[in-house]
């Protein structure tokens, strides 16, 4: 913590950056902090409540943040992949951001909770974490905490895979009928950086904007397919969803498909090409007649 604050102070003092995006203790739990003055640096903290993916704030779509100037951003290993994704897809330049990596022992899903990690509250992404020390970081701070507890409970993706198409259809219909098409999943997603989303286009209108079953399915399937090889699994969409739709399941599935077929795991190395958008001559094509 002290190291993080010191580093932020130094970066602001020597004007390397004009804002450090990190975490602070708000009146109701942990929240993103925008530190612009060296003497505010001691507000910065890092603990298991720091679930937010701050890379989202680097997106050039956020005009009110672009005007803040050069940014440093505090990232966990998983979030670093989103920074890499933005660089990979030429949304930001690597040299335009200072990446402060924090060694992470897992986070809870609830920034307002007590911050004690248990099998019950540990964020789903921490179970499969292999980047507790972000590699993309310009600076790495903190001691490596012990590994997070492994969540218990059934593997829902495997459970769904074992069902018949009709059962899966019924499952998703029930879950997706709650979607109100607020598009919060898109707005909080660090990798949803399109200047204009296909769901907002009206000429032609591919995806209807109403929250009825056919448009809900069309929207969620389209978003997931656009996330193939992009999704960093941060779970911000699930956290934002006002209907608690298990978007994580589809995203997890799509990541598994991409890994199985193309050997690609979402990477924090911007130079690794995205799997969709590139190809190999010998890609499997067993499904094509």
């Amino acid at each position: 913590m002290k190291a993080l604050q010191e580093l932020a102070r130094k970066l602001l003092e020597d004007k390397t950056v004009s804002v450090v995006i990190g975490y602070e203790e708000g009146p109701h739990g942990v929240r993103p902090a925008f530190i612009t003055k060296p003497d505010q640096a001691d507000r910065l903290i890092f603990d298991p409540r720091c679930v937010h993916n701050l890379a989202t704030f680097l997106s050039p779509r956020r005009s009110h943040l672009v005007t803040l100037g050069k940014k440093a951003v505090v990232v966990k290993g998983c979030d670093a992949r989103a920074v890499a994704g933005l660089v990979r897809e030429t949304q930001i330049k690597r040299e335009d951001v200072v990446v402060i990596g924090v060694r992470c022992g897992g986070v809870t899903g609830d920034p307002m909770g007590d911050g004690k990690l248990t099998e019950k509250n540990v964020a789903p992404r921490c179970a499969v974490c292999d980047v507790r020390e972000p590699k993309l970081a310009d600076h790495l701070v903190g001691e490596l905490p012990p590994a997070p507890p492994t969540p218990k409970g059934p593997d829902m993706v495997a459970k769904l895979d074992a069902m018949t198409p009709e059962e899966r259809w019924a499952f998703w219909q029930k879950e997706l009928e709650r979607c109100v098409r607020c598009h919060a999943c898109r707005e909080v997603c660090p990798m949803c950086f399109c200047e204009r989303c296909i769901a907002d286009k009206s000429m032609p209108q591919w995806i209807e904007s109403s929250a009825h079953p056919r448009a809900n399915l069309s929207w969620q399937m389209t978003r997931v397919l656009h996330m193939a090889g992009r999704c960093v699994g941060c779970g911000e969409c699930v956290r934002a969803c006002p209907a608690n739709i298990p978007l994580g399941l589809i995203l997890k599935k799509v990541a598994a498909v991409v890994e199985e077929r193309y050997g690609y795991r979402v990477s924090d190395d911007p130079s690794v090409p995205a799997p969709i958008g590139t190809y190999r001559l010998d890609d499997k094509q067993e499904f094509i007649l």
Partner: protein
Amino acid sequence: MSAKTLTQADLTSLVSDILAADKRVVAPSLVGIGPLEHIEYRPLHKAEDMVLDRGLPKRSIKEMFFPPTEVVFRWKQKKSDVAIDEIPTTFQQTVVIGALPCDAAAPGIVDRVMNWDYRDELWNGRREATTIVAMACDGGDKSCFCTAVGLGPESSKGADLLLTPVKAGYHVDVLTPKGEELVSKYSKRFGEAKSADEAKKYQEAARKKVEGNLSFDAPKMRAWLEGNFENEYWRTIALRCHGCGTCATMCPTCHCFDIVDENEGVLAGERRRNWDTCQTGKFTLHGSGHNPRHDQNARFRQRVTHKFAIYPGKFGEILCTGCGRCQRQCPGGMDLLEILGDIARMAGGAA
């Protein structure tokens, strides 16, 4: 008005009775899977699905009066002619059970905007068909601030009946003719009121719990908001805001909407009204490309100003019931309580 008692078992039977009479019963019930299981206000299939002990449902009650999407008419085209198929403005009789006071109060506030000059029949139709049985709250959590906007965990505003949990079940305050009607129709379920004092104690304890969270002087706040549109304070208000609109989606009083057309095949379709929010850039974007609210700071200012200055100025009520959902569920950690506290301090009205 009068008071009654209702045991837990009788409440369940009451719900069954109402369902059996072909009415709709809406109550908090469990939805979602695994760790995402939560409660929402849903039409019940059976009385046992009702869950009254899990606090505030994730989304507010407003969607029972103002659905996320609704058809306003259908049309069919034949050559150059168009025929319009009207949508009925009468709705199935509905009883909402277990609405918390911050939700129960909201429709009455939104009534104002739905009825100034032009009467919105779709909203009013659902309002008239609905009886609201509210349930006194236990005081919620640190994000609650109903007492700051003139309500409270025991507020009966907007409710036809108010249930207060007591040892024997519920103490029932009968508040309106609609409430009387419900009680007399199902009188065998209600007993003599015996626990008024116990209920009072429950309510007082709950109020104490909420009161410390936030308080402000509403007229002073309104005056400050009206006079400080260009204040420096707004320039960085929404740094952590993603513009996702979850606050508005959850909000019991946010009522902005969009009107869109959708086609069914090529020569038929429907016009719909869908939820919309001032938190997206698209909301005010002109065809010319000009956008009066060009960034998130301006959009968030609009949300605060509309709720605490514009609406009170125009319609006489604060457009907020203090449910705290916008703070509790904001993925970016925006904190309306903190903002209101800041403004109250600047307005010199902090209590």
